[in-house]
């Protein structure tokens, strides 16, 4: 057996390296929810159809991430999708008539909410609702419409 001091130093280094690797995995590789809570205010958005939108999807304005989707629910009176988004506290001057659309990043990428600013001088606050919305593009519905318009075109000829 080696000198006890030598062994202890090596074991100490080993344990430290193990915990450093674990810490690295936690901080660099995964998204610890502890550090991911956006400090901000909640805004409700109604959509006819949210497509494949999921919780924690990004909310952007002009391509810059300003928040995240907090929760998704169904309004049982109007049968609309009721999406709650949390917008970062720093962006507290979004006009009240801001509109929201659901887009897809890339051809097959995940879906996100894009906000485009309106022109009013009143700003969105906690608990407000965005009413100007555009639903997600559902590919099947789009193809269906396209085929229907093709059919009409043939009749005219």
């Amino acid at each position, binding site marked *: 057996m080696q000198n006890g001091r030598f062994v202890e130093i090596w*074991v100490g280094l080993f344990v430290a390296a193990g915990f450093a690797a674990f810490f690295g995995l936690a901080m660099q590789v995964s998204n610890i929810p502890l550090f991911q809570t956006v400090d901000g205010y909640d805004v409700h958005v109604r959509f006819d159809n949210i497509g494949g939108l999921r919780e924690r999807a990004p909310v952007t304005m002009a391509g810059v991430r300003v928040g995240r989707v907090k929760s998704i629910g169904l309004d049982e009176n109007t049968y609309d999708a009721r999406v709650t988004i949390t917008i970062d506290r720093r962006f507290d001057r979004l006009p009240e008539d801001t509109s929201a659309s659901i887009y897809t990043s890339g051809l097959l990428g995940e879906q996100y909410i894009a906000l485009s600013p309106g022109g009013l001088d009143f700003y969105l606050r906690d608990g407000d609702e965005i009413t100007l919305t555009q639903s997600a593009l559902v590919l099947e519905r789009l193809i269906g419409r396209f085929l229907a318009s093709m059919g009409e075109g043939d009749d005219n000829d």
Partner: protein
Amino acid sequence: MLGLLARLGATTISSFQRLGRGTFFLARVLTGLHSLLPRPGLVIAQVYSIGVLSLVIIVVSGIFVGAVLALQGYNTLVNFGAEDALGVLVALSLLRELGPVVTALLFAGRAGSALTAEIGLMKTTEQLSGMEMMAVDPLRRVIAPRLLAGFVSMPLLAAMFSFLGIMGAYVVGVGALGLDGGAYWSQMQDAVDFRDDVMNGVIKSLVFGFVASWIAVFEGYDCVPTSEGVSSATTRTVVHTSLAVLGLDFVLTAVMFG
């Protein structure tokens, strides 16, 4: 025909008998664990020979497994124009499966076999009986520190393996294949969940560490005290640990991600 049947039955009964003996052995070791509290030096010395001396093989294979994953994943993903998802692929496969499983298999070959051989030789040279003669319980003095050290070392080794694999994949993917470094990390952080992926991997490696150390010390303690007995016990350690780890991995994966 009858002889064949009789032998099959005898093998089955004796393997159940060994399993039962192993369980009693484990129970006796675990009830003696508290005697280690005043003597942490025994465990530290074993963490050195089990954990620290396994570092080289874990570091080297971690880096290379990550690098190979990056090369292979890139070749497939680039066909779909999805090469930015390489970080997700590498991180999830390492954290969920390859990190715990490959570390456990390397552990069985590097540390488990050494444990079995050491304890088996102690038994063959009658050091264990000698301890009993001096009223020292070998289960507490020899076995318990080794079991505990294996249990402690495995998750640390697996965490290092996964982390180094991800770094190795970064070097290959971003350095050699020309991916965007920002996309590598940001897509990974979006897709990897701390509780679902990182913590489940740690739970897996804790289970594997426990089972691998248990098998290694039991095979050594239970071996036939001859040079042939020690060598066949060492072989059994590696084979049984590998099978147990792969079987348990399937069950754990089905429970965690199924």
